């Protein structure tokens, strides 16, 4: 502890250089934080998928519907605990640019299968009883300024009333939150029964979600479900929610990965430059280090001092960078609805701190060891 003033003096020796080095490190770690948030966003929520959930879609494509009658047949498959379904509505709230994603679901079984959705009991009761009711996540409610009880007019692009009118009126019955970080709360959920009559082809749903008793048997159960509907007009493709989310995330494909590569490259380049500057600042002080040695500082202490200096700088600057990035992501999706989730995962924050520590250690170690091995006579003669 008593060496901290010395370390501080060393850092402030050339104030401008230290500040600029620190600022570069801050920038690097802000980038690191934002990159990890982007990765989460482009990852399509793969990390938060339930291991005990399977997704059943039409074998040809997700956009093709499956008959509602499959529900009971899937439920009868051994190993299946519960079945629910969802249907993409494709409506527009005021302007297509608003990016609202509406899904028609069976409220009760949907909430059962997704325990991640947390809805206060009173709101849940209201929703279950309200055929034209809907629930949304807090961010969406905030984005449009909706309050519980508000009427929300949505223009259907696919679904229309029997009289041809595309206007649908929903009542906001609840605002749901989640107990699992990273779970996408941007969906606007409402009762399937409300649009049931408006379907061009009656009694069809978009996809099924199955809850299974034992995740170990996911593959067998998926095969059983698909076998059940083989050679029917509506063949299915069943996979774990994780596999489904992964395949979906890969559809973003090259764009996501290229941005990730670029930012990673940038991050390490900045660190390399900053690290070089830090190491150089120690090299410049060879003479002083020799003086310290003359005064009786032993080798280990010298190494410790140099390391302490570089680690302090790296950790403080890195910490500030990560904090700034974290504050930035707290505001949520900066693109207003294009990225479903946008946050820095806890493990990424830890990795960030470790990287900062590593930066400090490496940049301190090389000149530190040199300083340690230094022969006082050589060093003093060099000046």
């Amino acid at each position, binding site marked *: 502890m008593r060496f901290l003033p010395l370390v501080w003096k060393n850092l402030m020796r050339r104030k*401008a*250089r230290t500040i*600029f080095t620190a*600022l*570069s490190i801050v*920038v*690097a770690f*802000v*980038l690191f934080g*934002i990159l990890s948030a*982007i990765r989460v966003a482009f990852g399509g929520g793969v990390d938060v998928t339930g291991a005990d959930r399977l997704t059943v879609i*039409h*074998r*040809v*494509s*997700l*956009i*093709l519907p499956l008959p509602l009658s499959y529900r009971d047949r899937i439920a009868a498959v051994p190993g299946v605990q519960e079945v629910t379904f969802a249907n993409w509505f*494709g409506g*527009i709230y005021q302007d*297509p*640019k608003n*990016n609202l994603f509406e899904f028609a679901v069976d409220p009760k079984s949907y909430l059962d299968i997704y325990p991640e959705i947390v809805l206060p009991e009173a709101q849940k009761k209201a929703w279950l009883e309200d055929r034209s009711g809907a629930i949304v996540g807090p961010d969406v409610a905030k984005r449009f300024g909706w309050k519980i009880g508000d009427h929300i007019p949505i*223009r*259907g*692009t*696919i679904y229309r009333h029997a009289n*041809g009118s*595309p206007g649908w009126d929903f009542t906001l019955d609840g605002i749901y939150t989640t107990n699992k970080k990273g779970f996408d709360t941007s969906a606007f959920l409402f009762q399937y029964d409300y649009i049931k009559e408006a379907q*061009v*082809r009656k009694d069809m749903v978009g996809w099924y979600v199955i809850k299974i008793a034992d995740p170990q048997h996911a593959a067998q159960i998926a095969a059983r479900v698909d076998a059940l509907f083989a*050679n029917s*007009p509506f*063949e299915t*493709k069943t996979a774990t929610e994780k596999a489904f989310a*992964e*395949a979906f995330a*890969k*559809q*973003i*494909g*090259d*764009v*996501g990965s*290229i*941005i990730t590569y*670029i*930012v990673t490259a*940038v991050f390490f*380049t*900045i660190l390399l*430059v900053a690290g070089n500057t830090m190491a150089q600042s120690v090299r410049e002080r060879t003479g002083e280090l020799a003086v310290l040695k003359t005064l009786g500082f032993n080798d280990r202490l010298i190494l410790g001092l140099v390391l302490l200096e570089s680690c302090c700088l790296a950790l403080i600057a890195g910490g500030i960078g990560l904090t700034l990035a974290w504050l930035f992501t707290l505001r949520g999706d*900066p*693109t207003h609805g*294009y*990225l479903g989730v946008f946050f820095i995962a806890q493990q990424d924050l830890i990795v960030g701190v470790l990287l900062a520590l590593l930066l400090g250690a490496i940049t301190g170690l090389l000149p530190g060891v040199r300083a340690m091995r230094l022969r006082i006579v050589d060093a003093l003669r060099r000046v």
Partner: protein
Amino acid sequence: MRFFNWISQVAAVTMLNLRTLPQRRGAALSTVVGVAGVVMVFVAVLSIAEGFRATLSSSGSPDTAMVLRGGSDSEMVSGIPRDAARIIADAPGVLRTAAGPVASNELYVIVDVPKRSTGTSANVPQRGVTAAAFEVRKALHLVAGRLFQPGRNEVIVGRGAAAEFAGLEVGKTLVSGQNRWQVVGMFTTGGQISDSEIWCDVDVLMPIYRRTMFQSVHVKLASADGFAAFKNALTADPRLDVKVEREADYYAEQSRALTSIVTFLGVLIAGLMAVGAVFGSLLTMYSAVATRVREIATLRALGFGGLPVVASVISESLLLSLLGGVLGGAVAYFVFNGYQAATINWQTFSQVAFAFAVTPRLLGWAILATLVMGFVGGIFPAVRAARIPVASALREV
């Protein structure tokens, strides 16, 4: 005369600075590299957005129009009944040939095809068309095989789709659910969005997907000016509930989501890096000034003004930045321009193959940003240089 005197002062001090550059090689190089990095990232990320936009906006010539159901914002959610399609084809303004009106009734669906690079399934668009489709899209031509025959389970695939997705080579069979499609040809439209699509006969596709309605009618107009009349005729027709758009406008709208995400990310990342690079160049210029304190003081003592000193430092900073900018732009151009990629287009939920495009506009912006960085990086050290007290600076060792 005064002015020329001033210019020659600036030139003299700048030359003095530049001659000392080799002594400060390391610092100068780090500025150049820093700026080059910013420009490279900026150009590379935004070339994704530019390429995507270019692919979609080149799709659709001014004399083609698209008819969707009223209120639809993409083909995917639209529906046009057969009788409505007939009314649309007979509307005024539609180009007519010996074969009848040039109006193609189309169905747009998605099939799961594995992506070549990852092996995971991707949403590839399959479009059912009529013979008129080839008249509407004049840019389309076959590069291999032949056209599909009407009434048969045959498809032709776009060059982009064949490159990005597995099993779409001519001669292969595309299995989708219980349907088997023979790939008989490959076409290109020279980089338009159709290059990402699989085409087949709409009358074969409709029963397979159990559709009774088309989704869109693509129409070639007799002249580009005829659009308004064509649109008015359709929207005023009480038998129809349709939305009429120029194809170009429709596709421009389609590129909005992805372009705005990528542009946002690109500007954010490059902006942060630019801040870093400015720190780097400030550092370089401060040290440049510091090593020349005596020279600058000497010049001031000889009667050089403060402004030439400021101008010389800024011009050095600008020069270094510009060098970095040109370097970064060139690297980005050679590495990323024309890079083939595919991504999902959220508005239609389907894959689009496109090429990254490093456009002159992008490079222009990059150079502008470079100059701003150079200026900001130079102005503070420049002011410090000009403020050096002559007497004490000369006394220094």
